[in-house]
């Protein structure tokens, strides 16, 4: 777990350092990986109907949202960002998960609204660290979840 978070943080630093080029690659990779996989644990997903496909879409969106949350947690551990900022992000992440869990459908608009508001609630000094991740998640949700 610690190793995973360290990797995320290093990726974050790389993203911040190399700017738009790296972010573009990261976003393209994220969007590409957000389509449901052709198989899970070796088992084909080709015969899934709409409910199954929708469930796997949610799994992929959760992975994308987890990147934001995990970056915040590790940034807080590394003293890059204050606990208050990490708490804002973790709380927003939890709210999104609750919305997705409880909604029978049509959660996309609510989640996009929460992510948009999250960008505004993050303190100015920390926005540069996290807004690129949030924008990437917004792009993924808009592109993949119809």
């Amino acid at each position, binding site marked *: 777990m610690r190793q995973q978070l360290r990797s995320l943080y290093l990726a974050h630093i790389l993203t911040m350092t*190399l700017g738009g080029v790296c972010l573009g690659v990261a976003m393209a990779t994220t969007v590409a*990986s957000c389509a449901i996989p052709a198989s*899970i644990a070796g*088992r084909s997903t080709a*015969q899934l109907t709409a409910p*199954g496909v929708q469930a796997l879409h*949610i799994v992929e969106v*959760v992975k994308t949202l987890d990147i934001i949350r995990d970056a915040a947690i590790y940034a807080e551990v590394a003293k890059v960002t204050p606990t208050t900022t990490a708490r804002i992000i973790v709380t927003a*992440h*939890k709210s999104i998960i609750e919305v997705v869990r409880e909604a029978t459908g049509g959660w996309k608009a609510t989640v996009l609204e929460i992510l948009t508001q999250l960008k505004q609630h993050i303190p100015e000094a920390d926005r540069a660290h996290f807004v690129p991740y949030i924008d990437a998640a917004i792009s993924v949700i808009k592109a993949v979840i119809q």
Partner: protein
Amino acid sequence: MNPLITVALQQLPAVIAAIQAHRAQANPDLPPLTDAEAIAICRQALDSTEAKDDLWLATHP
């Protein structure tokens, strides 16, 4: 920017695509995933990530 980093960034999507393609190969000996199993995987993912949120929030009051 270091030329090696530039090359690495240019090649990264192709490398990731190749890994994903390899990992996406279904085993023909295994039954296909059912909708119920996909929904169970989704619930497990939601439970797991929310539990992590709860744990972090509880330890950072």
